[in-house]
């Protein structure tokens, strides 16, 4: 290896990417790493989605047609782990890598080598996780929430799953540290905090959440490990512990985690709507405060996932009220977006379509979340498909749509080519129709009493499950359009201008398309 000396300071990677395939292994460039993250996430989306399709196929009809119940459970578990840790989080980190340095007028991330490591951990972590599917006894089958003592019954997979989570956690924490350091330290002079685009703000707060709660998850799964292999009794009443203690620690991580999955999406939507409404974002400052309030509240609502575990009454009351409170800052965001659209001059290119789809369907998911927050009602909703409907409405047309919107929005800047608008729009409409066919009926079967995490169900749920399965295959296969549009855009197409979108505002639109390998070698002037 080359001994680093002062001259290396200015060697050739200041001008363009290194040659050969090792470029991708060794790169310290935020755009390269962003691309790696995004492609990784896309691949995992198909793996996680493939698992979802197995779930839906088995649920197409009552009776067990295809899979063993144990394998079904491990599909449920893996589907969630892959989607959350392998799709949404890496995609957001990829977008952060691409956009944050550009948006704040910085040269790159604050710690580029660490950045490379954060990415290259992910494929190995998922190799470790997915390998359990090929072990005797199969993958983890206790749900993504890994509740003790059920998860402790897992076969050989338990240790692998726990270490895979540690592994991903290392990646997330390092990535978040990098993002925080970048935002605090790499801004161009004049880019004050309250001038930062909201995507940067929401990521700053997300990174803070990640650094705060990922170690807690690490602690929780470490306790699982020692309970299983070293004879501790954190989660066993016989030794003075409590299985419910795992749930408290898990959800102390888990609830902030779901906001980790949505706050960057809020940032993306806050960039896209003003562009296509040709009007500045309404209530910038209140958006920042609302994001911060959501983050703060997210630490004190965790037990709304545990209304049936038998908490003291005062605890149930507290968590109910605190959870309801989150609707207020979230509502502020929704209202601000609508006020941004109000009396704008709107056009509806694909990113805007996805943003509006987000707005409508996230609100539906949020409102069902509010219903879940009402403890006495949640006791009926809990662990039914009503919950499944809720979180898919906030995750799929929420988090996933925001990622797709962001891709369409910034892809011309990344590749220098316009994407195919016609197919983009088709992608949106087909996805949106099937998505609702897929997830809306889950509200019905949930309320009617269908529990979640079951491979087989009673006759009364048959019709709507068949509908949902049809929607699932429709939605899943329409994502192939997305892949087609992305690949086509990477290959070529109409050349994009510097500004790309008529109403776009922000530093990323001041550099040529495609953005040069090193965006800003010296700090840009800030208005």
């Amino acid at each position: 290896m080359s001994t680093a000396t002062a001259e290396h300071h200015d060697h050739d990677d200041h001008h363009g990417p290194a040659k050969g395939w090792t470029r991708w292994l060794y790169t310290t460039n935020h755009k390269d790493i962003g691309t790696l993250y995004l492609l990784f996430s896309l691949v995992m989306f198909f793996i996680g989605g493939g698992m979802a399709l197995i779930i839906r196929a088995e649920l197409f009809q009552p009776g067990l047609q295809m899979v063993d119940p144990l394998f079904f459970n491990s599909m449920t578990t893996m589907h969630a782990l892959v989607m959350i840790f392998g799709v949404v989080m890496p995609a957001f980190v990829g977008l952060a890598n691409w956009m944050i340095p550009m948006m704040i007028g910085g040269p790159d991330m604050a710690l580029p080598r660490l950045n490379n490591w954060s990415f290259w951990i992910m494929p190995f972590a998922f190799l470790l996780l997915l390998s359990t599917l090929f072990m005797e006894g199969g993958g983890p089958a206790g749900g993504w929430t890994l509740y003790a003592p059920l998860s402790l019954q897992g076969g050989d997979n338990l240790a692998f799953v726990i270490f895979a989570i540690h592994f991903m956690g290392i990646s997330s924490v390092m990535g978040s540290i990098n993002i925080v350091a970048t935002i605090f330290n790499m801004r161009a002079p004049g880019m004050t905090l309250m001038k930062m685009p909201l995507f940067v703000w929401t990521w700053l707060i997300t990174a803070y959440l990640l650094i705060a709660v990922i170690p807690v998850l690490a602690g929780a799964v470490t306790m699982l490990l020692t309970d299983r292999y070293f004879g501790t009794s954190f989660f066993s009443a016989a030794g003075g512990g409590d299985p419910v203690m795992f749930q408290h620690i898990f959800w102390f991580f888990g609830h902030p985690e779901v906001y980790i999955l949505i706050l960057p999406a809020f940032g993306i939507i806050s960039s896209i709507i003003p562009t296509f409404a040709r009007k500045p974002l309404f209530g910038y400052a209140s958006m920042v405060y609302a994001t911060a309030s959501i983050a703060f509240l997210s630490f004190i609502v965790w037990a709304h996932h545990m209304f049936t575990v038998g908490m003291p009454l005062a605890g149930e009351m507290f968590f109910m009220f605190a959870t309801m409170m989150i609707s207020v800052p979230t509502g502020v965001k929704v209202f601000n977006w609508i006020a941004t659209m109000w009396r704008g001059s709107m056009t509806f290119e694909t990113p805007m379509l996805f943003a509006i789809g987000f707005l409508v369907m996230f609100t539906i998911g949020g409102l069902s979340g509010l219903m879940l927050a009402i403890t006495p009602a949640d006791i009926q909703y809990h662990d039914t498909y009503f919950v499944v409907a809720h979180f898919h409405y906030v995750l799929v047309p929420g988090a996933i749509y925001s990622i797709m919107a962001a891709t369409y929005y910034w892809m011309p800047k990344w590749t220098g080519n316009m994407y195919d608008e016609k197919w983009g729009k088709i992608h949106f409409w087909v996805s949106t129709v099937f998505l609702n066919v897929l997830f809306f009926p889950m509200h019905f079967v949930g309320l009617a009493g269908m529990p979640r995490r079951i491979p087989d169900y009673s006759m009364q749920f048959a019709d709507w499950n068949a509908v949902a399965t049809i929607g699932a295959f429709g939605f899943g296969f329409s994502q192939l359009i997305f892949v087609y549009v992305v690949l086509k855009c990477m290959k070529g197409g109409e050349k994009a201008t510097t500004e790309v979108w008529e109403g776009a505002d922000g530093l990323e639109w001041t550099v040529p398309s495609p953005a040069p390998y090193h965006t800003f070698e010296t700090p840009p002037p800030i208005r």
Partner: protein
Amino acid sequence: MLFVLRWLGVVSAALAGQNAFAALGDVNMTVGVTPISQEVYGLHMLIFWICCVIGALVFAVMFYSIFKHRKSKGAKAADFHESTMVEIVWTAVPLIILVAMAIPAARTLIAMEDTSNADVTVKVTGYQWKWHYEYLDSGVSFFSSLDAEHAAARQVGSGVDVSQFEHYLKEVDNPLVLPVGKKVRFLHTASDVIHSWWVPDLAVKKDAIPGFINENWALIEQEGVYRGKCAELCGRDHGFMPIVVNAVSEEEFDAWIAERAPVETMADAGAQTVAATTEDDDADREWALEELMARGEPVYAAACAACHQANGQGVPGAFPAIAGSAVVTGPVDAHIKTVYVGVAGSAMGSFANQLNDVDMAAVLTYQRNAFGNTVGDTIQPAAIKALR
């Protein structure tokens, strides 16, 4: 398919001004048969409609804007981007709505948690994958698991058309019998992992946590059969541990208890499985191999096959095969211990309280001589009795 017809039904019902939900089939929460379940249903409908109204307003404004303020219609963008006044309004108004929702919610919650002054107490214990009920006042106790016909039909590749069962996966061998008009208190716990006892009609859902007891209650107002399911993921057959509550008049209930009480109050270990109850239970006599084999087969099917499979092959990696198992074909003591004490930290729990001496001896003997195992010896009920 049926749902197309139903959709037509919805549309026509809506047109005719009828309750659209009814036409959709089973799409809403059940009203239930207890005061609490009815209160919860009311609360659910209240918050549902509030959410609908909020959604309708928000979307109305948004779509108005989308249609009116579009460039293609010649809209020119305005320039406003701030207003403290509206920000305050749209923070305050939702807060008020939330308070309006919170008050009835809190009231219902307090009522739900009040388990005092119960007339009947039932201890409900979750097992992988069946329920055990124990009437603490009279000592009657029994296991309740998925009906055998359903259990056979639900196997992968069983070839059975499950739509022939009216209550597919919601039928049990021994239903829980409860009196109407009495406050019944439930004590929920579990023996292995967390389960959750849920009967929608009673609005009772409480986690059954090993090592802890949770309390809950119900006052059933109407006779009938109410069906529910385990609601917390508890392993492979989580989807197959239904609950059936048979709500009967007080007299019927008392008669039912009286009929069973004499037999089942006596022994602490008097629990029994689905299998053989009326047969000869003399643990002291010498049993022949054939006798034990004949008796062991149904016991195995009822108690062990859920994990070790009907063919004794187990599920690789999760549940060991009985066929050719070193434990089963090895020394008697280790075999007995595995089943009597269980294997700590695994799904293999203790069966000491689930099987009586004869059943346990029979199933052990059966394992040693079935599925191709040919140990040839017997395990006598007396040997199990000696352990108690």
